[in-house]
């Protein structure tokens, strides 16, 4: 299954919630759009998207607990990488 097919399957996974009104369709559409956009990138994000889709499919079928700790770690890592790039405070701020 190529990347686009995986993205399409992920969209299909989200569809029932959107179509029955459990989630605001117009807001979710933005998320679906970006997932499609990510799926077309031939870079690391695309590979991570494929892994995410496989994980979601497995989780949907297994009814097991969601690995939120992994997500939190990834979020903390990404945030730390960005924070490390912040401009240093201007000189003269300390005596």
């Amino acid at each position, binding site marked *: 299954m190529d990347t686009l097919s995986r993205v399409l399957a992920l969209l299909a996974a989200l569809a029932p919630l959107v179509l029955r009104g459990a*989630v605001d369709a117009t807001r979710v559409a933005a998320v679906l759009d970006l*997932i499609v956009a*990510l799926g077309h990138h031939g870079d690391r994000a695309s590979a991570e998207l494929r892994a995410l889709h496989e994980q979601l499919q497995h989780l*949907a079928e297994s009814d097991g607990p969601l690995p939120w700790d992994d997500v939190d770690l990834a979020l903390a890592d990404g945030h730390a990488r960005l924070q490390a790039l912040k401009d240093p405070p201007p000189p003269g701020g300390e005596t």
Partner: protein
Amino acid sequence: MRAARSFAPVLALLLLASCASAPTWQQVDARPELIAFALASSYAVVQGAAADLAEDPATPAELRRALIAADEAALPIVMRLRPLAEEMVALREEFAEGNIDASRLRTGITNLDAAIADAAPVLQALLDLIRGGR
């Protein structure tokens, strides 16, 4: 209106997807917390791409600052998804055991829906910055 227009091609893609594969997605329908998980996980992917771009020495300082600021604004919103999703799971169990009524369950769904609605645009905003920087 803009979002509604963008949803039209998505629906078309969904029709194609339904022909291309037939996964057992009924379970997803019963687990709205999966949407929150998918959204938070998607944000982590986008955030990683933002960090890659920001770490590139060729990236203009202005864009780098914008990526950092977008993540600072988005992260607290994205981080609200987990507790509400986990509350959703707990509420469903309580409801199944007859300890709470349907209105309490609906409140949990509404809260989770609101968090998803808040998180989606900040995710989109960070992605737009990345797109503009490539």
